[in-house]
């Protein structure tokens, strides 16, 4: 050996297994960090992209502006792209749906993200492109070049009655499909041809330049173009989606934070052990004349060699893992449009690992330098703070609980308190992350959230607002009789007037009304009651019982709901700024509902009744698409029928067996749905199938994250425990020479493992409970269906049990090794 630094590779090589464990631990920790970072940035980016895809990239629409104003908008310094939308005309169909035709210029098409399933956009006079779902509902095929006869009402007095040629099929937009208003495209030349005007008012879709903030720019545009309030429409869906993406950022940051803490702890632990175990050797080197700087050079050299191997490997593993998961296995493929790969993630991950390694390795080495050599020699024997072992109460208790071996194991761990603490911290972090991820996997699955938004694969819908239109009991029976249909539940709906005291209207709602409609809420001066429109909904008793999780206050009492003594209230006005409670009405308060009844000879009569409020709900059960605007009243079918006299259902949800051939069922349901006036069938099964896939992928992703954490924990704990035990070979040799039997040896060593496990399991479980609560707190914004937080006992116990078992198993390997060694060799062993 020419140079002392050659000690470094020699040592690493001599301790092959431990070096390998260190490298594996480090590399996995780096990989976990990089992959989480990549996934998070890609998810956030994709969410924004997706919001644009769904709701368009424009921030504001300027309606009915003159060509001159349009020109001003195009040339305005704060606008980026401006699209022109020219209205053409509308046709209503007897199915209850409508077609609205426009021309979109190229910018408008891009900003609205209009795309084609087949064909092309219209260019010439008399050409048209129609959404796929409308063609289907009208009973038309998707074949191009077919003739579409239209009767359009337009802004000009005379309706247009002509035939158009279908040149393109537009991709569905789910909101249009739900509302029943379908967009169709014609060319600008068509509009000029039919309406004859060239200087028509148009709508402008405006994308505000990224250099300017959106909210102050909108009023400025309004001022500069001299527009009225009702001409300026913000794209609230996009803005709230962007806000939603922002909402997710704290939860992502939280996940990132957890991952970083866990990995730092793991890296620190793995590396700290690698250095501390060599304190004795350093003492020896110093005894024979090594200077402190020699020691730090050796430690640094070791740290550099290990980092040089493990950090690049970890980065490759992390990046490769994400690409493989997303593009290879297809995990989150629907959520992630592109993997965003900002180089800073690599920098941050590498930086964090280097800092942890520095803290773990170089610092203790510095400390080691300041200890006199002879003490360093003795360091490994354990520097007990107190020079005397006092029979303290704590020790007596330990001995009493766990016996001699338990206490002995405890003393052994306490001699390296810091090492023990670091290991326990690292392992309990891993366990806590496991609990938090497990909780999120079980409860916050995005597919679960969406599944709540799509209650059933099919919904039959009576589009007409007439109280005389709807499905009857006999229809439900027919639906139920179809093969593959498992459950049918129907919802009644009716517009009513509701009366409540003005004093119970919230200030927030009054402000909102003032802001949106420029009017104040007023009450009947004689009674002091406000009269407002409200939706009245009738559900089956069985269905209402399942709505417990939506309760904010009160209870769902089936009997009283059935008798009509009580109703449930949905009490929100939802706007872009979130849901605002409309009234302060609570359980036990009374409301009065009035309804127009059509009697004999079509004579109208009004009926009023007062109901007691039994409970307040977060939203309408199983109708998440129904954005609550004002007060909604939920009743039992029986009470609904008694009050309104109607037995008709406006919506019918149809559930089918999971393995059902949806297209067959769909055809059957279609005939039933269309058997009434303006009856429609809305199918969600394609979306549902996609969701199921997404659910599987989410689980897979969570499992792979959990898998990595488990491997890191295993590498770290096996490393620690075996190092700890093998370092004490000589002691175990002595004990055996004194007559410690193999049985007793196993007992002693198992106790050490168990103490690691019990402590980590306890703290990990406790931590995990806390983290799962934080996770819940973050998730509650996204997953409104989550009822209330409960300690995830099953996961906590599983994690704690797993941790204890892991620690126990980690002792088996060194135990075997210790037993194999001859006593004399063990006694002589000096590392």
């Amino acid at each position: 050996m020419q140079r002392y630094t050659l000690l470094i590779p020699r040592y690493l090589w001599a301790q092959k297994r431990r070096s390998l464990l260190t490298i594996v631990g480090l590399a996995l920790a780096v990989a976990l960090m990089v992959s989480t970072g990549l996934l998070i940035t890609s998810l956030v980016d994709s969410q924004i992209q997706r919001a644009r895809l769904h709701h368009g990239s424009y921030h504001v629409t300027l309606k009915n502006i003159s060509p001159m104003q349009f020109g001003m908008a195009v040339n305005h310094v704060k606008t980026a792209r401006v699209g022109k939308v020219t209205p053409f005309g509308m046709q209503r169909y007897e199915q209850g749906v409508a077609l609205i035709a426009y021309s979109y210029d190229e910018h408008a098409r891009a900003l609205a993200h209009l795309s084609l399933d087949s064909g092309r956009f219209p260019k010439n006079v008399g050409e048209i492109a129609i959404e796929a779902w409308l063609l289907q509902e009208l009973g038309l095929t998707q074949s191009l070049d077919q003739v579409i006869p239209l009767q359009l009402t337009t802004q000009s007095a005379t309706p247009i009655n002509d035939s158009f040629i279908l040149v393109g099929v537009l991709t569905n937009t789910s909101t249009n499909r739900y509302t029943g208003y379908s967009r169709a495209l014609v060319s600008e030349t068509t509009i000029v041809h039919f309406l004859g005007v060239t200087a028509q008012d148009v709508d402008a879709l405006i994308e505000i330049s990224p250099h300017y903030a959106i909210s102050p720019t909108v009023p400025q545009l309004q001022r500069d173009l001299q527009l009225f309030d009702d001409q300026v429409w913000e794209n609230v869906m996009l803005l709230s989606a962007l806000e939603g993406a922002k909402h997710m950022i704290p939860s992502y940051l939280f996940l990132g934070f957890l991952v970083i803490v866990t990995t730092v702890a793991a890296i620190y632990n793995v590396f700290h052990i690698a250095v501390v175990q060599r304190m004795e050797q350093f003492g020896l080197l110093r005894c024979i004349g090594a200077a402190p700087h020699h020691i730090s050079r050796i430690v640094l050299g070791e740290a550099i060699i290990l980092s040089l191997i493990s950090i690049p490997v970890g980065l490759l593993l992390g990046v490769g893992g994400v690409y493989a998961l997303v593009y290879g296995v297809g995990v989150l493929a629907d959520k992630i449009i592109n993997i965003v790969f900002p180089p800073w993630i690599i920098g941050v991950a590498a930086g964090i690992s280097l800092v942890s390694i520095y803290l773990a390795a170089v610092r203790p080495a510095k400390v080691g330098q300041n200890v006199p050599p002879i003490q360093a020699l003795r360091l490994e024997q354990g520097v007990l703070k107190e020079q005397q072992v006092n029979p303290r109460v704590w020790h007596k208790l330990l001995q009493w609980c766990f016996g001699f071996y338990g206490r002995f194991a405890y003393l052994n761990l306490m001699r390296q308190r810091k090492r023990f603490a670091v290991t326990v911290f690292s392992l309990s972090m891993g366990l806590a992350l496991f609990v938090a991820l497990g909780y999120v996997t079980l409860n916050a699955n995005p597919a679960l959230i969406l599944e709540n938004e799509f209650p059933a694969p099919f919904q039959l819908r009576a589009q007409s607002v007439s109280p005389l239109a709807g499905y009857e009991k006999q229809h439900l029976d027919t639906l139920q009789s179809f093969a593959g249909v498992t459950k049918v539940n129907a919802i009644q709906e009716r517009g009513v007037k509701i009366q409540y005291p003005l004093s119970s209207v919230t200030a927030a709602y009054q402000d909102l009304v003032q802001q949106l409609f420029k009017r104040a809420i007023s009450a009947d001066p004689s009674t002091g009651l406000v009269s407002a429109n409200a939706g009245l909904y009738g559900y089956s008793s069985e269905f209402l019982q399942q709505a417990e999780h939506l309760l904010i206050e009160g209870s769902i009492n089936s009997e009283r709901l059935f008798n009509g003594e009580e109703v449930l209230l949905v009490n929100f006005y939802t706007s872009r700024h979130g849901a605002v409670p409309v009234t302060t009405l609570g359980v036990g308060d009374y409301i009065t509902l009035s309804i127009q009844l059509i009697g004999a000879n079509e004579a109208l009569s009004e009926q009023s009744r007062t109901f007691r409020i039994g409970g307040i709900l977060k939203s309408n059960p199983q109708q998440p698409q129904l954005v609550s605007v004002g007060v909604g009243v939920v009743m039992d079918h029986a009470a609904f029928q008694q009050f309104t006299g109607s037995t008709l259902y406006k919506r019918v949800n149809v559930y089918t067996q999971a393995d059902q051939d949806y297209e067959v069922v769909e055809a059957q349901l279609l005939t039933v749905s269309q058997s009434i006036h303006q009856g429609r069938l809305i199918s969600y099964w394609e979306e549902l199938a996609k969701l199921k896939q997404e659910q599987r992928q989410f689980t897979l992703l969570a499992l792979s994250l959990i898998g990595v954490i488990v491997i890191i924990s295993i590498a770290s704990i096996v490393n620690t425990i075996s190092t700890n035990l093998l370092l004490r070979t000589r002691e175990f040799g002595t004990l055996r020479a004194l007559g410690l039997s193999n049985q007793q040896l196993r007992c002693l060593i198992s106790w050490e493992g168990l103490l690691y496990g019990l402590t980590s399991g306890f703290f990990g479980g406790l931590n995990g409970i806390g983290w799962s609560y934080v996770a819940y707190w973050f998730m509650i914004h996204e997953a409104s269906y989550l009822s209330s937080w409960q300690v995830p006992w099953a996961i906590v116990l599983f994690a704690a049990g797993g941790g204890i078992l892991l620690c126990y198993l980690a002792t088996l390997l060194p135990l075997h090794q210790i037993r194999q060694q001859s006593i004399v060799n063990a006694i002589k062993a000096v590392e």
Partner: protein
Amino acid sequence: MDIIKTIGLKKVYGKGETAVCALQPTDLTILQGEFVAVVGTSGSGKSTLLHMLGGLDRPTHGQVLLEGQDIYTMREEKLAIVRRRKYGFIFQSFNLIPVLSAEENIVLPLLLDDKQIDHSHINGLLDFLGLTKRRKHVPSALSGGQQQRVSIARALANRPSIILADEPTGNLDNRTGKDVLDLLKMSIKKYNQTLLLVTHDTQVAAMADRVLYVEDGIVTDGRARACSDILS
């Protein structure tokens, strides 16, 4: 009555080129209550012999009979029990357990055996070895000599039938060394124990009933040697 008997006991360390024959085939008999001194130059194989007699290291060949029973044919569990009940071992390097106090180190063999601790016996030992004031200290807080005395007390704690001492007085000053020897001699007389003691000190060897000479792994019985000396 002989307590230990070896038949063709041999120990080879390593294999092939680097093989070291630490102990040549040896036949020995040690009687109950005998005080045997083992002398020889460094590296001659004294410790090796003691280890094998004490059931710590498996011989390459041959047998060690303890009260007529071959200890190396015993199962490991049984051998462990023999170690803690029959033997008291004093190591050349003390081998104390760093986390236990002096007193706990001493009673360790009893603890391992779940035996009731005879406190007057232990206190007597502590007192005699001058460790009473130091009983609560951990080994790293003790001087080398004190550590050695603790290891001697540990060997005597369970009143073994055989005490194997590997240079027990090496780290002690003359006076203390003599005291320790007196203690050992007193102990073997009182409890009819057998003592095998490795030493470089000819005065100490002279006190023994018998001396075993070890040279390059060859053990010669002192009596035989004395005879041959006389003969030559």
